[in-house]
């Protein structure tokens, strides 16, 4: 007596696989499952892939053939290809591009000290619009905004300088140096 084939349910189809093909299919589906680790819907995708295997193998069976062998399965799997998770790439991209950004002064993007650039980034405002608004306030408030600006210069930590960026412009550089000097001198919190 010899076992010839195994009945396999592939999603909505039931097919006969010989032992070698059955082992190969098991391996493919196990690999797919491990590639889909972390995907929220692995069951749905695995079900779709099972159906794809069934359809592909059915297409390849000879008219009087009922048992799937490696001769049908291998080209079928080759055509289906291994699972590619969308968005995943070897060079892992930042997983949370919209991660909350700290409220910091950004010297590289600064006109004066980087307060507006920092506020803009933190609140998602257009920096130019914010600066125009600040200048308007300056004119309307008769200078009170300057006090606000200087206070924020003292309170907002400086964002770390980007590696390899251009040297700071003169005023932002001076502001940064001077503020760091004040912070050390008066033991204020530093960024």
């Amino acid at each position, binding site marked *: 007596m010899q076992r010839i084939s195994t009945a396999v349910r592939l999603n909505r*189809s039931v097919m006969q696989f010989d032992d070698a093909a059955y082992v190969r299919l098991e391996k493919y589906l196990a690999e797919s499952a491990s590639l*889909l680790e972390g*995907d929220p819907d692995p069951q749905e995708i695995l079900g779709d892939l099972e159906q*794809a295997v069934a*359809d592909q193998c059915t297409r390849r069976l000879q008219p009087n053939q009922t048992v799937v062998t490696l001769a049908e399965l291998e080209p079928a799997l080759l*055509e289906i*290809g291994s699972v*590619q998770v*969308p*968005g995943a790439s070897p060079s892992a991209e930042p997983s949370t591009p919209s991660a909350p950004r700290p409220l910091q002064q950004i010297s590289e993007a600064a006109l004066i000290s980087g307060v507006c650039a920092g506020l803009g980034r933190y609140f998602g405002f257009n920096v130019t619009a914010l600066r125009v608004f600040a200048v308007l306030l300056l004119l309307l408030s008769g200078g009170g905004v300057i006090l606000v600006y200087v206070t924020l210069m003292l309170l907002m930590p400086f964002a770390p300088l980007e590696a390899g960026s251009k040297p700071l412009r003169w005023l932002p550089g001076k502001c940064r140096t001077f503020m760091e000097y004040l912070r050390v001198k008066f033991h204020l919190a530093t960024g």
Partner: protein
Amino acid sequence: MAAESKLAPIRKGLLEFLVLKTVGAKSMYVPDILRRLDGTEFSTQEGTLYPLLSKLRREDLVQYEWQESDAGPPRKYYRLTDSGRAQLTALDEYWNLINRTIAEIGH
């Protein structure tokens, strides 16, 4: 080829756009989509397409319905949702903008 390694990520990034466009033309099941893309730069495989469609469905950009087939089990026919249609329009416009920029820059 050095250029190829730079082109591959572009194709990969655009595949989602192409799939939305393909399904946007009419509702299709996966072999239709594969056939439509076959022979283009975006030729792909079920192993890539099913995870991508699953993601697009979670993002409510596509949805599917079951349709009986003459041979074999029922098939999943994918089509765009309203928000998928809106996103496709936005992508189309952005793509045209990129194209114009690329054509104009350096002239």
